């Protein structure tokens, strides 16, 4: 099964996967699932100096049939308090939508998500309540984000 999937996997995806495994980006790991080579288990370390520092966040990523003409689909599986990530882990990030370009890769997407953790953007919210919290009392919102990181992302 894995072999037959593999033989039909576009060369671009094979290349990207090999590079992700051989030269992982710092603080990011992505490995394809055995049953489905378009489906990746992803881990992202919370960036230093962010409210997510010390957290280990699990995500899932899927390359749809029309990748790389269409962007990968990505979401958080670990609960996270962030204005651009909703309760189901869906991410509001322009390059996952209208700003996608086939010149981008899985690696660039994951780096952008890591950067989003360092720079939450409450002006383009997905989680309205969290964004409001961020704008009205950033200190308190950041404290909640730290608390959630400790509760849900402490590297189990």
């Amino acid at each position: 099964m894995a072999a037959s999937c593999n033989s039909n996997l576009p060369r671009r995806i094979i290349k990207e996967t090999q590079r992700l495994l051989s030269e992982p980006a710092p603080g990011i790991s992505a490995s394809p699932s055995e049953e489905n080579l378009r489906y990746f288990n992803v881990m992202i370390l919370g960036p230093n100096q962010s409210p997510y520092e010390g957290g280990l966040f699990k995500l899932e990523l899927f390359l749809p049939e029309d990748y790389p003409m269409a962007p990968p689909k990505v979401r958080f599986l670990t609960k996270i308090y962030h204005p651009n990530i909703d309760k189901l882990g869906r991410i509001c990030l322009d390059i996952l939508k209208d700003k996608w370009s086939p010149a981008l890769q899985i690696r660039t997407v994951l780096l952008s998500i890591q950067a989003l953790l360092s720079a939450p953007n409450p002006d383009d919210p997905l989680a309205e309540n969290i964004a409001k919290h961020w704008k009205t009392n950033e200190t308190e919102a950041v404290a909640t984000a730290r608390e959630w990181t400790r509760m849900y992302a402490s590297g189990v």
Partner: protein
Amino acid sequence: MSNSAVVVPRNFRLLEELERGEKGFGDGNVSYGMDDGEDVFMRSWTGTVIGPSNTVHDGRIYTVKLYCDKDYPDKPPAVRFESRINMACVNQESGVVEPRSFPMLANWRRDFTMENILTELRREMQTGQNRKLPQPPEGSTFTC
């Protein structure tokens, strides 16, 4: 399964179904939504089916529970009527839609969706015997 087919993993498939359910589709005679907006595994769903006209079900609104386990959509969801209904494929004790008398569940295919199930249940209400079977009072529920 064709070996060139791209398999959409469970969670992304359910996210697609969620978005379709939120946007609405078709003529509005069937609809569905997720029960717990914080359940990252999207297991529990509630569907509604509006009874077709020219049947005993005309105008009734039926509530149907669908449970998508870890092996969905390789395996069908568990489907159960919450509203009481007298129909051949529905267990009259529990409201469970019995796969052996509802071919869509028995001969499940991975590309079938919750929308397909609800649409098929509505079609079932219009078939020969089901359209005329005496029905319990409107609004009563299976208790289990």
